């Protein structure tokens, strides 16, 4: 086995892979936050809870109804996205005329409710969700052992991220969306139903979070607290990237995952805080974020 900088290559690539997987979740979640922020101008604090709901709904579908992983990949984002649409219609839509901070407070309260309910029902020990049969086992790449499921997570999230990018940047629907971000009144005057666009956008962002939850279920145990700590890191990722660009959110997410993985190899104690340190540096050097536009 060869070594790189005195580190066994297997350990290095292992941590890189782990970083890439974390990066996949950062990218998917910060992408959802950026899409929602772009049109609704609120930070969706419920995002972590909705990611957790994604994992739980996948687990429920399997346990109570026998619906397998592949169907869950499709059904869960739709189900959780629909709950998001209900929440947007009933509550968030009442706050658009107010200071954006109220949206933050409301979604924080919703996150507390959702997490509390799931903690009451399922405890905090976590529930197992097994890897689907087709993705069991792994592949030996010569320099490292690659578990198939983890490779799938990275590939799937790359595909979803770039699919979203394509949808927003290259299609007609995306053009409406971007136009409504710039000037909702004008877009409304052209006969496009902006409130419905906003509702669907929120549902889509929530669906992305739920999809990330399904992808995460077999890797991490399905746990009511799984979203709470993750979402704070994702907030830091969003501050570093700036929410101005979709591609920026994707690249920052993957990049920071890899940086975190590398930190775990070279100085493990700092791996929990490295993203926050980077955030401090970015605030010092480029306060608007790496891809952000100055507001």
């Amino acid at each position, binding site marked *: 086995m060869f070594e790189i900088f005195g580190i066994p290559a297997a350990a290095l690539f292992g941590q890189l892979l782990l970083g890439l997987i974390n990066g996949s979740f950062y990218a998917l979640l910060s992408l959802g936050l950026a899409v929602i922020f772009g049109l609704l101008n*609120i*930070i969706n604090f419920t995002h972590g809870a909705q990611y957790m709901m994604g994992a739980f709904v996948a687990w429920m579908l399997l346990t109570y109804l026998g619906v397998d992983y592949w169907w869950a990949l499709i059904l869960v984002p739709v189900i959780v996205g629909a709950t998001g649409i209900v929440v947007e219609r009933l509550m968030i839509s009442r706050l658009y005329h107010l*200071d954006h901070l109220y949206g933050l407070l409301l979604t924080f309260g*919703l996150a*507390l*409710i959702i997490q509390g309910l799931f903690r009451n029902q399922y405890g905090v020990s976590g529930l197992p969700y097994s890897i689907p049969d087709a993705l069991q086992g792994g592949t030996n790449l010569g320099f490292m052992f690659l578990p198939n499921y983890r490779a799938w997570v990275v590939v799937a999230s790359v595909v979803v991220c770039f699919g979203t990018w394509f949808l927003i940047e290259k299609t007609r629907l995306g053009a409406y969306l971007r136009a409504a971000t710039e000037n909702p009144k004008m877009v409304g005057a052209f006969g496009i139903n902006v409130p419905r666009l906003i509702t669907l956008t929120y549902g889509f962002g929530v669906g992305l979070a739920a999809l990330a939850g399904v992808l995460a279920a077999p890797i991490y145990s399905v746990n009511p607290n799984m979203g709470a700590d993750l979402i704070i*890191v994702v907030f*830091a990722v969003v501050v570093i990237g700036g929410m101005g660009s979709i591609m920026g959110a994707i690249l920052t997410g993957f990049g920071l995952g890899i940086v975190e993985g590398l930190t775990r190899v070279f100085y493990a*104690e700092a791996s929990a805080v490295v993203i*926050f340190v980077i955030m401090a540096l970015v605030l010092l050097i480029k306060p608007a974020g790496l891809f952000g536009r100055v507001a």
Partner: protein
Amino acid sequence: MTDQTLMDTVETPSAGRPTPLGIPRLHLAICAALVAFFIIGPFFLYPVFLMKVMCFVLFACAFNLLLGYGGLLSFGHAAFFGSASYVSAHAAKAWGLTPELSILLGTGSAALLGLVIGALAIRRQGIYFAMVTLAFAQMVYFVSLQAPFTGGEDGIQAVPRNMLFGLIDISSDNALYAFVFVIVFACLFLIYRIIHSPFGQVLKAIRENEARSVSLGYRVNRYKLAVFVMSTTLAGTAGATKALVFQLASLTDVHWAMSGEVVLMALLGGMHTVFGPIVGAAIIVTMQNYFATFGAWVTVLQGTIFVVAVLLFREGIVGVLGKWLKKPL
């Protein structure tokens, strides 16, 4: 905060007959009632509970100095509350410092931390400011989890109540109560004076219209940083005192849930009022005390209060009361 409709409860010292210290009579009456309540309180209620209420009252008021008057929503105030709590607990336990010195040390460390985090956080506005403070607070949480002196998951337990000034024994709950009472009310008075000082008026101007304040020649960022540090310093005093009362500093104090709780206290009581956070803190602490056995339902209840407060009464309890009385509270 730039929303004009919410600002109508902002008080200005009312004109008319001069009052002692320039404080309106209504405010004087409320202060007197508060002092009386906390003096008579220990005869009827458990003193440790009342001390907890007082610590959180101070924490909420310190926080609201930043939110209600500076217009800056920090989602990471647990970092200052908790780190001060750790520092004072460590100073009292490991170094055997007297209570007033350990509280001062805790307060000082919160001020220093506030200066560093504040200087970075004020580079972003609005929602980003909230996210940045939350992220830095999470960093403080991870450091508290791993640092050698914080005791990890166990926290710092059995913090001794040393002799006050090296002379006075405050090991009994009643003696400690008097000490905590003096600290908290002195700090509350300080916050009241800050809000109603010329400095406080400039803060309100910045909150209402930052661009105009800049054009009037105020160095807005210096004001923001100053109020941020004041707020974190006083939050630190609250945390350090809390460590002495419970003889414990733990990860709960630095967790994001604590940051959320203090936001809730200010929101529930009324963020643009002087007395709102006091009411909010008292309600939330009482609620936690009596529903402690219901486990995660407390979280659900807190979340529900958040949602209801944001949707239905954004002025908060005291804000609504003030509107009803047509007097700024």
